[in-house]
């Protein structure tokens, strides 16, 4: 597939370049001189509304599986165990786990627990240079090892969004990396497709 992509893309790259752009149009538009008056162009520079990244509510705590009187999940803070009873790092990888968190699905290369979790404070994560970050800033951590996706994400080309393309008219909400990728088994889940086509037009390939 990569090969095919390259084949057709060479041409498109040319058409994106300022020169041959007149013939195929990502159009005159992209070839427009940089001094095109921007005054009437709807620009994200006129940002009046924010882009909010969704943060999981259960960060820093484990679901005990028990439910409170209103059916609310009862959570145990990581540090309710780790600060007192489980101070030392006991496990490097999932196979080292003997007493607890056993059975956790783990399929993320050979990345060790401590590559991400801070073993002084397990409610926090740390970056490769040792900088400790709160769980909510997990994107930075993922971005260290996945630069391509982090860059694409920063430009809206990975991870999707909801709300407004035009931030001068309304806000935007985005999913964080761990909304779509379980940090321990990050492969994107598989789906059962919805809305099977039924009209006569779509019967079989054509």
């Amino acid at each position, binding site marked *: 597939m990569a090969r095919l992509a390259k084949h057709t893309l060479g041409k*498109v790259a040319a058409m994106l370049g300022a020169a041959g752009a007149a013939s195929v149009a990502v159009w005159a538009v992209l070839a427009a001189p940089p001094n095109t008056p921007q005054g009437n162009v*709807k620009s994200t520079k006129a940002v009046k509304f924010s882009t909010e990244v969704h943060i999981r509510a259960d960060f820093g705590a484990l679901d005990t599986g028990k439910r409170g009187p209103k059916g609310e999940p009862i959570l145990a803070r990581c540090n309710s165990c780790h600060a007192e009873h489980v101070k030392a790092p006991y496990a490097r990888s999932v196979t080292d786990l003997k007493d607890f968190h056993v059975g956790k699905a783990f399929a993320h290369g050979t990345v060790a627990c401590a590559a991400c979790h801070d073993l002084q404070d397990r409610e926090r994560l740390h970056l490769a240079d040792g900088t400790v970050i709160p769980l909510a800033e997990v994107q930075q951590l993922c971005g260290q090892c996945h630069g391509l996706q982090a860059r694409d994400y920063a430009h809206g080309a990975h991870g999707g969004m909801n709300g407004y393309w035009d931030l001068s008219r309304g806000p935007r909400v985005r999913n964080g990396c761990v909304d779509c990728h379980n940090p321990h088994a990050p492969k*994107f889940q*598989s789906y*059962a497709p*919805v809305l099977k086509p039924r009209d006569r037009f779509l019967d079989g390939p054509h």
Partner: protein
Amino acid sequence: MTATTPALPEDSARRGLLKAGVALLGAGAFARALSPLLDAKPITSLAGFLQGHYKELTTIEKKAMFKRLEAETKKDYGADVTIGDWPAEPGVQFAYALNLSICIGCRKCSEACHEENNHDRPSGNSYIRVLEMEQGSMDLERGNTTYDHAVPAPGKYYMPVQCQQCENAPCVKVCPVEATWQEQDGIVVVDYNWCIGCRYCEAACPYHARRFNWKKPEIAAAEINPNQGYLSNRIRPQGVVEKCHFCLHRTRQGRLPACLEACPTGARVFGNVLDQDSEIRWVLNNKRVFVLKEELGTRPRFFYFFDK
């Protein structure tokens, strides 16, 4: 754009295609194309019959027409809807891009389109077809749209196809009554009240992006999306052609299209290419984008790309 087909000189390829498209409708097909017109129910109101071409109507005439259409929807479907009209904005040129390395073929986009755009429920109609393709193949004609297993399946990739909003749109050229045209922001629209249902446009489209309303759409009042655009998602009458309009009733108010919001994978990128800082502009500048059937010279404003 098919890797296996050598690219033909742009012009001859296009003309060849257009001729073929029209020739297709030559004999028997022509009668069939017209037949739905014959069983279409007569236009009920005199006002409907006398309505002028949309582009020539004054604001006051349009308002009156929307009121009438709203009342007709109430009568026919029992739903209270608002029909509006959002003109293309200066300084905005829409474009769409789709990351084929990310799309998993779940068809949530088709479903969102189905709901947003008040499609006929029994036929499960949608403006988006998702093709299941063999990895390594780019032959759209061999894509399968009726797959029904967990996705993504091994060895496959998925290509959603909807109206490509071509700059050089074959469908617009063949319309005998100018019921379909391209607006300033690039969206190709259909005036359902002006369309005569000849289906030339449907045959001319190399992307199979147009649909014909064989019967009056069936949709329960509770499921009707009441925020409707005259040129977009209002319930279409029987006997007219329809297609994707980039959700103009949303996008011309600054919002993202319904299919983009519904995508659980984040494969879709939409925005204003005139804006240097927009996401879509970034994709066009930094990803190796391509268009479908480039050799036809249709100049789509819908782009595809792979991450690797």
